[in-house]
């Protein structure tokens, strides 16, 4: 177990030993710096979520509007590709740091308590609230992300009939119908809603936690930040779940 944890903690330790990258790497060479990078990448991914949801809300505007948006996005070509590379790098950093800092923290405890209780109040989620669910929800989100890319980007889900979205040359060109085809199968609806709920839980701690890690904590703002973080998390989640419900209910 300890050997495994040591292997998992290698990225974080390697990060501390990369020479020549100057002051930037020095900032990130400590646990505090790595958490700051977690916070920055996490908040960046929140920015992506907002953009992604904003674009997808065009589904409500109908077939023409959504397809126009999808084609406009795809016609960006190299710009889109560069953005996707950046997005993947952000995901990879966030996930890699999550695994390595968690592994290091497990090593830091060395031996678990026979009994562990908390003095914190009651949480909606058992086991100390969303902050103790970050790894589990993170893994769920990652699994969902892989499924989501297979479904929507690669159009490779064998359980989905993509033919409604293909044109005469058998090329998928109607993204509106493709999205609808994916979301309207009951199994996918369950998978998508599960993934989005995991995202909501993850963000309900993540946003506030990221701000705290970046040093934003003041008694004048704390209540607002706490409520704002939770509203953001469940606002984004509700927005995406709404699209799944819409797709299942959509006729025509």
């Amino acid at each position, binding site marked *: 177990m300890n050997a495994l944890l040591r292997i998992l903690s290698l990225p974080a330790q390697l990060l501390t030993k990369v020479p020549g990258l100057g*002051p930037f790497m*020095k*900032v990130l060479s*400590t*646990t*505090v*710096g*790595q*958490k*700051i990078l977690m916070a920055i990448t996490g908040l960046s991914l929140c920015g992506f979520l907002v953009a992604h949801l904003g674009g997808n809300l065009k589904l409500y505007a109908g077939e023409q509007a959504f397809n126009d948006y999808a084609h406009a996005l795809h016609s960006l070509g190299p710009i889109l590709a560069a953005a996707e590379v950046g997005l993947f790098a952000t995901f990879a950093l966030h996930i890699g740091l999550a695994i390595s*800092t968690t592994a*290091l*923290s*497990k*090593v*830091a*405890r*060395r*031996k*678990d*308590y*026979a*009994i*562990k*209780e*908390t*003095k*914190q109040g009651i949480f909606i989620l058992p086991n*100390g*609230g969303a*902050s*103790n669910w*970050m790894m589990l929800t993170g893994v769920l989100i990652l699994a969902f992300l892989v499924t989501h890319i297979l479904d929507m980007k690669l159009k490779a889900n064998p359980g989905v009939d993509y033919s409604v979205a293909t044109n005469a040359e058998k090329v998928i060109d109607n993204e509106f119908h493709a999205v609808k085809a994916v979301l309207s199968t009951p199994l996918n609806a369950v998978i998508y809603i599960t993934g989005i709920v995991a995202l909501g839980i993850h963000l309900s*701690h993540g946003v*506030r*936690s990221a701000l*705290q*890690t*970046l*040093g*934003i*904590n*003041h*008694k004048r703002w704390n209540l607002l930040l706490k409520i704002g973080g939770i509203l953001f998390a469940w606002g984004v989640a509700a927005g995406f779940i709404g699209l799944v419900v819409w797709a299942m209910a959509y006729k025509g």
Partner: protein
Amino acid sequence: MSTHLLNLNLRVWRQAGPNDQGGFKTYRLNGVSTHMSFLEMLDVLNEQLIAQKEEPVAFDHDCREGICGMCSLMINGQAHGPDNATTTCQLHMRRFKDGDTVTIEPWRAAAFPVLRDLVVDRSAFDRIISAGGFVSVNTGNAPDGNAILVPGVRQEVAMDGAACIGCGACVAACKNASAMLFVSAKVSQLAILPQGHPERNARVINMVAQMDKEGFGSCTNTSECEAACPAEVSVAHIARLNREYLRASIFAET
């Protein structure tokens, strides 16, 4: 309040030395007065063990009035027991009921190795303090009182950090065994006051580096430390440490 006598089952971690495997041993202790402090109860247990020609249980303690930071103990899964803002020595047996089983463990952290039974080595904290938790002062004549002006509000915030007694409950309670609350309290109290400014940048960089070197975990902002802290040190200090760290890393001249 009338005195009640409790009969307790004590499940105590026994470990002969740093390299011993260790394990729980259960003792029956009868006639415990509810007026006793938790440490006095352990004293009585040790009297009983000595009378039975067994090794007494080793545990840390000193002032027994909640200010020295020597006492520790994970009591039924709670650092310093079930009460808020309380050290183990201030915990009284009236918090327990007759027939209770009380599980007592040492702090668990790689950076706090168990020396014997319930005693852990917390010198990692001392080394973090040595790395930067100090100010430099001129020797010679005593300076004029109030020669350096410090606004009252800042004094209060600094004092909130300085309230830390260095007991290690934050590390013990944190699921990551992170020392961030301790380190942040020590960085904060000196970062806020003008007397701490000459070493301000080096302090946070060196103390964080030493914290990592000791093998403490990282902070996931669960606030478990704040809830467990007998001195009620707030996680607002952790945010200040993060600010100090960013400031020192990005803007410091050296």
